[in-house]
Structures are given as C-alpha cells and as structure tokens.
C-alpha cells in the first residue's frame, strides 16, 4: 500500500514539475510568437560580434568567447536567413533550462516541509530583469545557467567534497560565457571561503571542512585565472570585470577596505545567523508587513529624490517583487537559518550578505553605478530556493480550509503580477521597447538602400541600428557609436533627444525615426546604457516635418525616413 501511495505522489510531483516547466517555456517563447522577431538589443550582440567573427575579422568579445562561438557555429550550420529564426524561437527554449539549477538546489535541501516545485514556479515566472523574460538569449542567459550549476555543485560539495571539481569546471564555463556572472561567482566563492574560514577557526576545527576550504580557494584561483585569460579577448573598455578592476585600483584605501572587509565580513555574517536561530517562531505576517517598507517605500523615496522620471518603472518592478517574492524569501531565510546547522545556513547567508554589500558599494560609485542593473538578477536567482521554501512553509502553516483558499488566491495573484512585469510596456520600462516590428524591419532595409543610392550615412538609435546592421549584413554606414561604452555618441538623434532642441541636419545623413523613440509613445532614443539619451520631443518631430529642405522619404506607419534634400543648404 505504502509503495503505491509513494508512486502516486511521485506521479503527481512529476506532473506538477512538467506543468511548471512547460509554463516557463511558454512564457519565454511568448514574445517570439507574439512579434515573430528577436528583440532589438539582442540582435546587437550578433551584428557587432558574431557576424564579424564570421567574416574572419578580429573583434572584442566582452562577454566571454563561448557565447559568441556557439552562435557562430549556429550561423554556419543554419545560414544567414535561418539564423534569425533560430534566434527568435530556439534560444528562449534553450534558456528555459537555466531555471533548473536552483530547483535542484531546493531538492537537495534536507529540510522538512520544503516543496521544490515552488522554487521552480518562482523561477518560471519571476522577471529576472535580464531584459524581458522571453528574451534571455543574450549572454546573461548562458552565464546565469553556468553560475547556477556552479552554485548547485558547491552546495552538493557540503555533503561530498568531490562535487567541488564539477563546480570548478562549471565555473570555468561561467568565465567563458559572461563577465558579470563570473564576477558574481567569484563573490559567491569568496564569501563562502571567508565565512567558512571564520567558522573553522572559531567553531569547528574539522579535517573535512579544512579540505573544503582548500578546494574553495583553488576554485577561486581557477575562476580568476579563467577570467584574466579572457580579458585579452575583450575590448579595452567593454569588459565590466576589467572596468571594476580598474576602478578598484584607483581607490587608495582599497587594500585597507579589503583587509577590514575580510576580517569583519565573516563576523557580520556568521554571528547574525546564530542570532536568527532565536526566531524560530517569527511569523510570516511580520515579514510581510515589513517588506513593503523595505521594498516599495524606500526605493520609491530614493527614486523621487534622485530620478523622479523613473518612478513608474521602479513601481512597476518593485511592487510585485516586494509583495510576491521578498516576503517569502526573507521568511524562508529566517526559517532555514533557525532550523538548520550553521554550516548549511552560511552557504546561503554569506553570499547574499556580500551581494547586498556589493550593491551598496556599486551604487555609491559615481561613474559606475550603472553596473547595479544586473545585480538584482543574481540576488533573486540565488535566493529563489529559499523563497520557494518560505512559500512551502507558508502554505503548510495555514490551519483552515478557508485560509488556504484565500492564501491560494493571493499567491496566484502574486505569481501573476510577477509574470506581468516580464512584458512591460515602454512607459514602465524607462521608455525601452524591446520588440521590433516588421514595418521597422522594412524601414531598416529601405534606409540601407537609400544610403547606397545617396551615398549617405544613417542616423538611428541603438535598437534600430542593430536591426539595420543585421539586415544589411553589417554593410550599412550607421552613425551609432558602438565601439565604446563611455565615449559620448554624437548623432543628431542622440543630441536632440538629450537637449530637446533640434538643430540643422548634416548633408548626406538619413534619419531613421521610429514611434518607439517618441515622447508621445513613452519611448526614447535608445543609447548604450552608459550613455545619455532621452525621448524625441514633439518639437523635434515638427522640425523634421516642417523645416525647409528636409524630405520625408518613406513612411511605414511605425516610423519614417528623413533626409536633407540633396543640394539644399
């Protein structure tokens, strides 16, 4: 009887897992089905790197070579025409896989009441802020997959040290895939090393732990060596790892900060975990009440003071995450730490503490605080098994059917709202429209044809510029400055979008303007994230429509081409 029941329960589990995994796949492929084209930003990586590699020319590979060479292989196998379809449909499917490592971590947790399927559900639906959920075909996807695998293998190494060898291999692949993922992995292993060293010195002088410490140190060295080896493949100022390094060596007090951090970090990590053990009865209700203050009120207050224009974006993302993810994650952390051995709790608390410290450090840097935009991804991804655990406990602690129904509806709403943030309209995504329409594709093709006819350059934003380079097989003379992350762009569209004041157009320049750039449509002229840009105002559009000598060459409803009439001064 018992074995039959077990079998039935296992079957139910399998069905749930399959359902959640299919949901994850459907969510990721929805934008591809909806628009039928890849997202603009993602095309940028292929046109500026993969297509250059295909021509046999040298090109910086800032994210790490693996991503680019995998795509080069796809390009060579399927050809140029098929490549677009591959990017559109196959990659979202491939990158559904990156939700699996945290699920396996959740399964490996030896705690009662944990339902790993909740972790999978979170990762299936939560917006990891890596562009939109369906378009994680950029290098982050591959980097996060290997980052997750490395964390999973490191977790397994707590039980059997041999697993650390797989973490080393996976760490190497992370370095080959994505610069920021390997940086976060480096932070992860460093936090473990320091905290376990403190734990070893103060609490448990055991041979097994010492061996693990030595192996973690070797893993850190391998990660550093792999990262340094790919620096030679990166552009001078494109590799964020190198940027952080350059920035760090300019801070005079850095050695003092690092030494002080290495001493105090393990203390502020390990000792509070011991303190948390006293909060076994800390209720979910208290956590839930605290979270909106930390997750909504504080970020909104800071945004209103520093960047009021970004308030709608901040609210769009922080409300669902603060209500649907954070309370369960914090509750899961408190309960996990209070019920488990210190050694196990350190595994989660040390990296999370260092990730948060890193976030505050980066945001305080004047010229580099833009790098903060990727950090929430790693925090959410790493905390997902504990959020799943928090949700498991919450659902088990309800003591009546009525409460269970009510909670089920509330959780369903939270999950739904997390999904909804994955498909933001431009007004909620700082003016960024990531999808490309077929009419914009035609506009780009015709802009290229006109540019050959008139021997003209093309001025457009990064989003459509990437499309232009793709449709022209990288032959178009685009004015967008993509060779540097920090040198200012100098094109009419960028300058006018920033100043709001139109000025005379140069001769022999075709302007490719799309509704996605216009203030009226909550859009903006997309520039690289490190460079300034703004929306195209009505004043600028009126200037283009009415200034004598500026022809409107084409209209595709979603956008238009403008050019100064040849021969006119």
């Amino acid at each position: 009887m018992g074995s039959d029941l077990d079998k039935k329960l296992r079957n139910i589990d399998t069905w749930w897992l399959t359902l959640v995994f299919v949901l994850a796949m459907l969510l990721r492929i929805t934008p591809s089905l909806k628009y039928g084209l890849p997202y603009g930003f993602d095309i940028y990586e292929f046109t500026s790197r993969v297509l250059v590699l295909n021509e046999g020319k040298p090109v910086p590979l800032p994210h790490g070579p693996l991503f680019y060479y995998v795509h080069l292989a796809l390009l060579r196998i399927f050809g140029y025409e098929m490549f677009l379809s591959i990017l559109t449909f196959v990659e979202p499917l491939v990158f559904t896989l990156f939700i699996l490592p945290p699920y396996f971590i959740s399964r490996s947790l030896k705690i009662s009441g944990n339902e790993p399927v909740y972790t999978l559900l979170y990762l299936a639906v939560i917006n990891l802020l890596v562009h939109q959920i369906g378009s994680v075909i950029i290098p982050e996807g591959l980097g996060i997959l290997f980052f997750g695998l490395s964390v999973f293998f490191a977790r397994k190494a707590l039980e059997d040290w041999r697993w650390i060898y797989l973490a080393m291999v996976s760490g190497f692949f992370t370095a080959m895939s994505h610069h920021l993922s390997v940086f976060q992995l480096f932070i992860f292993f460093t936090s473990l090393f320091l905290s376990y060293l403190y734990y070893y010195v103060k609490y448990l002088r055991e041979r097994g732990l010492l061996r693990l410490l030595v192996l973690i140190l070797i893993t850190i060295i391998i990660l550093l060596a792999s990262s340094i080896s790919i620096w030679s493949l990166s552009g001078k100022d494109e590799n964020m790892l190198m940027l952080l390094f350059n920035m760090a060596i300019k801070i005079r007090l850095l050695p003092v900060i690092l030494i002080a951090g290495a001493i105090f970090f393990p203390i502020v990590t390990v000792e509070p975990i011991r303190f948390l053990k006293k909060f076994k009865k800390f209720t979910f209700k208290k956590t839930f009440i605290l979270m909106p203050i930390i997750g909504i009120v504080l970020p909104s207050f800071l945004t209103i003071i520093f960047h009021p224009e970004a308030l709608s974006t901040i609210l769009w993302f922080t409300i669902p995450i603060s209500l649907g993810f954070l309370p369960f994650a914090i509750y899961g952390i408190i309960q996990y730490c209070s019920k488990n051995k210190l050694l196990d709790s350190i595994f989660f608390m040390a990296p999370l503490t260092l990730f948060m410290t890193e976030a505050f450090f980066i945001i305080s840097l004047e010229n580099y605080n833009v790098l903060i935009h990727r950090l929430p991804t790693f925090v959410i991804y790493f905390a997902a098994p504990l959020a799943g655990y928090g949700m498991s406990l919450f659902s088990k602690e309800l003591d009546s059917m009525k409460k269970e129904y009510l909670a089920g509806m509330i959780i369903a709403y939270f999950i739904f709202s997390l999904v909804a943030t994955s498909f933001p309209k431009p007004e909620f995504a700082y003016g960024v429209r990531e999808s490309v329409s077929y009419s914009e594709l035609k506009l780009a093709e015709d802009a290229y044809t006109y540019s050959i006819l008139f021997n003209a350059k093309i001025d457009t934003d990064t989003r459509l510029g990437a499309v232009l380079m793709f449709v022209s097989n990288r032959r178009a003379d685009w004015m967008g400055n993509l060779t540097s992350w920090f040198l200012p762009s100098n094109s009419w569209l960028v300058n006018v979008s920033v100043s709001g004041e139109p000025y005379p157009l140069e001769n022999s320049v075709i302007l490719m303007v799309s509704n996605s750039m216009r203030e009226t449509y909550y859009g903006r002229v997309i520039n690289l994230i490190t460079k300034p840009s703004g929306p195209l105002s009505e004043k600028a559009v009126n200037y283009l429509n009415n200034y004598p000598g500026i022809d409107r060459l084409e209209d595709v409803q979603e956008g238009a081409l403008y050019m100064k009439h040849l021969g006119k001064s």
Partner: protein
Amino acid sequence: MSSFLILLFIAYELLESPSRDFVSMKIVSYKEGQQGVSITLSISNNSSSKSEGVLLVMLGYADSTVYENSTSYSFAGFEIVDHSVVQVLPREEKTVKIDLSPNAGAKRILALYCLNPGFLSEINDYDTIVVRRSEALWVQTWIKS
C-alpha cells in the same frame, strides 16, 4: 490557480499581438526641370488583404505646416492638386508617377495615401486636412527652385 492565470496571461499576450501587416509608401525618384516636377512613388502592401485608398498630391506654400500627434496628422496651408483611388494587391508593390507643372509659390510637394477610400467625402475643411494616423501614410519633398 497560478498556472491557470499564467495561461490566461499568455493567451491574452498572444491575442494582443500586433498585426504583422502594414502598408508603406516611399519616394523612388524625384526630378525637377523647366517643365515642372516629376515624382515616382512606390506603395507597398505587406499584408494578405487588398489595400485600397486615396492618394492625394498636395502642394505646400510658404505658410504650410504639418502637425502630428499620437492619433492624427493635420496638414494646413496645402492645396490638393491631384487625387486618385489606388488599389494595391496583397504583397504587391505599386509604382505611381506624378507629373506637376511649375507653380511659382509652391515650396513642397506632399503625397498623402489615406487607407480610407471614402476619405475625400469626409473632409470638411480643405484649409486644414486632418486624417487619422492609423489610416495615413505620407511623404514629402521640397522644391529646389
């Protein structure tokens, strides 16, 4: 319930998919001489259904202005010099040649293709022509001399 809501959400997103069909218009060639101006336009129907609309050719004078917002275009200070109904079959690219005799005061030539065939009869005020953005395409070129 979460799964059901997510599936509903996916269905909504897919149902809300933007149409892949569109019509475009562009200037293919432009010549200016003693006999007047000659423009060749190309109207392309990138959809699976027939497109029928009115093509207006207008001359803009010194005080002519085009204004656009998120819902409409308005053309003020223009004179309609020619109009015709143009049908474009699915996936067809139709070329339209326009010849205009010299006009001393004209500063620009504007071609407006309105996808509403009954558009002309709906115009109340020829001094300011207002057309819905969703059913209009327009191109223009400025006269050199």
